[in-house]
């Protein structure tokens, strides 16, 4: 209250009027827009619920897999002393640099039952890996992985090595130093990578289109469904849901990273 009063006194009357008008306009605009979208969301929920739940089925396991593999490989890259570490990081980062369609093409090469590698993988897994949810999860994982890996490597390299040395003198074996010292101290950076990775998994488009096939009711995630329904009213609902999902994922991971361990 006190700070607000001081702030108000320092403003001229013209400024105050402009701020009040702007606040009212923005407030009404936001309120109207959100109300409109919410009304649309409720009206079109039946249409968008399928892609919504499919997106969750794809993005959650993709984020978990990308998180675990990304942190593990980030740790190896940060702590390992072997030649070619930077080359490996560059290879792992290719999905960020390459056009999503190129990533999708190579994934098809690796996963399609018609190719040598894909045929082998299909036999090992026991079912076809393309044009189904598994293919979508692989595409989203590949898209999310480099963000998790790069952030983890940077965060782990930023941990004070003296703290790790101190933990070793306590008798903790190296795996406990990694799990109980290094990773907890690097958790904020790792969480930042997971945040971007999860948002990337939620919004993955190009590779998912090629590997999943955009099959309505089977592999059509929200981001694919938005293009399909671009001229229809339910696109606003999908847009809102995607934005909310991304914001929820970012907020959730951010809160987790700040929580006491």
């Amino acid at each position, binding site marked *: 209250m006190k700070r607000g009063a001081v702030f108000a006194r320092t403003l001229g009357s013209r400024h105050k009027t402009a701020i009040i008008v702007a606040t009212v306009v923005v407030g009404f605009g936001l309120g109207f827009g959100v109300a409109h979208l919410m009304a649309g969301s409720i009206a079109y929920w039946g249409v968008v619920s399928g892609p919504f739940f499919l997106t969750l089925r794809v993005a959650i396991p993709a984020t978990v897999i990308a998180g675990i593999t990304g942190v593990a490989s980030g740790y190896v890259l940060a702590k390992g002393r072997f030649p070619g570490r930077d080359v490996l990081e560059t290879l792992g980062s290719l999905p960020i640099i390459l056009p999503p369609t190129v990533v999708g093409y190579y994934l098809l090469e690796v996963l399609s039952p018609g190719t040598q590698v894909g045929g082998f993988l299909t036999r090992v897994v026991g079912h076809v890996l393309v044009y189904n949810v598994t293919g979508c999860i692989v595409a989203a994982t590949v898209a999310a992985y480099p963000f998790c890996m790069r952030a983890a490597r940077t965060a782990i390299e930023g941990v004070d090595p003296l703290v790790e*040395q101190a933990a*070793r*003198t306590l008798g*903790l074996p190296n795996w406990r130093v990694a799990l109980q010292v290094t990773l907890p101290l690097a958790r904020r950076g790792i969480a930042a990578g997971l945040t971007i990775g999860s948002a990337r998994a939620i919004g993955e488009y190009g590779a998912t289109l090629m590997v999943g096939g955009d099959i309505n009711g089977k592999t059509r995630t929200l981001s694919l469904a938005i293009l399909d329904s671009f001229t229809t009213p339910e696109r606003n609902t999908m847009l809102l849901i995607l934005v909310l999902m991304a914001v929820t994922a970012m907020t959730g991971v951010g809160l987790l990273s700040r929580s006491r361990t």
Partner: protein
Amino acid sequence: MTAALEVTIAREIGEFELDVAFTVESGMSVLFGPSGAGKSLTLSLIAGLIRPDTGTVVINGRVVTDCDRRIHVSPQERRIGMVFQDGLLLPHRSVLDNVALAVRQASGRRARRVVARSWLERVGAEGFADRRPGSLSGGQRQRVALARGLAGDPALVLLDEPLSSLDSAVRGELGSLIRGVIISSGIPAVLVTHDAEEAEELGDVVIAYNDGRVTGRRIVERPVRPEPQRGAPESTEPA
């Protein structure tokens, strides 16, 4: 009687050459010398955090480093306790957890915490067992670091300038506490300092360092005290 520590090591880092040999008996031995003399490097070599180019380190009769025989026992297996200049406590763990992590002689979380709490009491830090290290003063952190260094029932304690980041009032008090706890526990200790007064007050033996070499060794005359019992938990009185 077996020496608590026998060191004969050489290590070259850039332009600097460390080449030292000394033995340490029970009580508190102080490595004293100017900054850059190689004192802290010696502690890191004893702890196994760095490997020497040549030489041996023997703790309580057990060879933990022997370059000729390619022996290098990992820091985890050396049974040493180490107290660092800035404490280096784990910031994401409570004070009690920091000390409990070091306890090797008890199994189970509850048993380790009981031992940890008793060490916190001995250093006068039981009042902030549940706090995070970030909320403690420098002196409080070093008390906890001392408890952590001793809680693992080590064969040897290494203290790397534990008082240098503290103001003078706290230094005197904490110095007395460190000496008192070390002597009463009966665990041999090696402390590094560049402060002549501190070396005199804390050490039973002062080993002088200069430019990577041992330049002297002197026994500090002290009143005769009763022989301490190793690991005895009762006495917390400073010397």
